């Protein structure tokens, strides 16, 4: 029971640190948000969208925006730790590696989530969907975010460790 409390306390500490760090630097969230918006706007103008084909194209555009924006953010979260050997500082502490993964995962989900919250209404407006569709999209987007962040966090750590960024 005590170990569990310590586990979540450490997850929260890393998450708190990452959020605070990001709020002060704002680099990741801003670049992700801008990227997602650009993708939505550019696709909206470049595709010849009509009533009969918009439903076929729009989901692809939305996921391209989310996935590429996420890749931008996922790479940065670990890169920020890796720079100046700060990841060493985290690895130096007696913290379970699962704690680090979980904290980074939740952090990435929050990061992607914020971008999605901003991008979804704009997507609905640009592609002429009924605003009520957001309610239907939320569970799908949420599940997609969990999948994207869980795999993305793992691979971003591996990529950072190979120094092949």
């Amino acid at each position: 029971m005590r170990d569990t409390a310590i586990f979540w306390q450490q997850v929260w500490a890393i998450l708190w640190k990452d959020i605070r760090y990001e709020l002060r630097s704002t680099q990741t969230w801003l670049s992700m948000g801008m990227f997602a918006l650009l993708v939505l706007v550019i696709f909206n103008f470049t595709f010849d969208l009509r009533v009969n084909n918009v439903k076929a194209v729009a989901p692809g555009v939305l996921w391209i925006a989310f996935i590429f924006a996420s890749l931008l953010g996922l790479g940065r979260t670990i890169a920020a730790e890796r720079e100046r050997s700060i990841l060493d500082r985290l690895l130096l502490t007696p913290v379970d590696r699962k704690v680090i993964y979980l904290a980074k995962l939740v952090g990435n989900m929050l990061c992607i989530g914020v971008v999605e919250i901003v991008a979804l209404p704009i997507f609905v407006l640009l592609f002429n969907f009924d605003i009520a569709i957001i309610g239907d999209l939320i569970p799908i987007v949420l599940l997609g975010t969990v999948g994207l962040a869980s795999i993305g966090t793992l691979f971003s750590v591996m990529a950072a460790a190979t120094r092949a960024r």
Partner: protein
Amino acid sequence: MNVQRDVGERSKEQPDEKYKDTDLDTASTNVHVVSTPIAQSPIVEIQNLKKSYAFKPILRGIDLTLLQGQRMAVLGSNGAGKTTLLRILACLDKPTSGTVRIAGLDLTHNPQHVRQLTGLVAHQPYLYEELTALENLLFFGRMYNVTKARERAIDLLQRVGLERRIQERVSALSRGQVQRLAWARALLHDPHLLLLDEPETGLDHNGNTLIDALFAEHTHRGGSVLFTTHQLERALLMSEQIVLLSGGRIALQRASADLTLDELRRIYSEVVK
């Protein structure tokens, strides 16, 4: 010292029996009470330690023993393997071969517990630049599960002379102030073993006086120190044991009391050519 102890039989949850009186609780570190151990038992035991990076040998068979409460100075030219040795002791690197025990715990089998026992001050401060001095210490306090972390952090910030910089971000601090904060970070969980890689780097005269005092306080409470330096006089003054590394091997290991500065200088210049 029985060096033939079977690591497999040792509990992976607790450090060696002889350290139990040091009030070490690996789940929750009481940072205020560290009593003196029963006798001078080894805090660091290294046997035939080898480390290679990409087939390039850095350490070529190191045997060392540091007793509880003692200070050991590790000397050597750049590339001699000093930092690698400290990184292994801090569980940042794994040995290629050989055995390393901290407080009786095998470093490769019990890294979590060993990390709770060690504090590292290195060339890198290992701090978060966008966080304030206090936020950094609070964060690491939670990582080390320090009880009353805020009080401990504020005490340490006062101790290292940063009480007026508590709410300043690390990026706004000078090199010397960052180094002082790194000291506070390393002492936060009251480690049994302090690992210092050229700890005087970036510090002015007052800073050096401060770290001398921190050295003394740490060993007075029964803690041990293993530090690297290029200052031979300082090494003699601040340690009970001198180890000289050359090419990843121990070229000299002797009690500081048995060495004069001139003798150490002569040996150093002969070994480090």
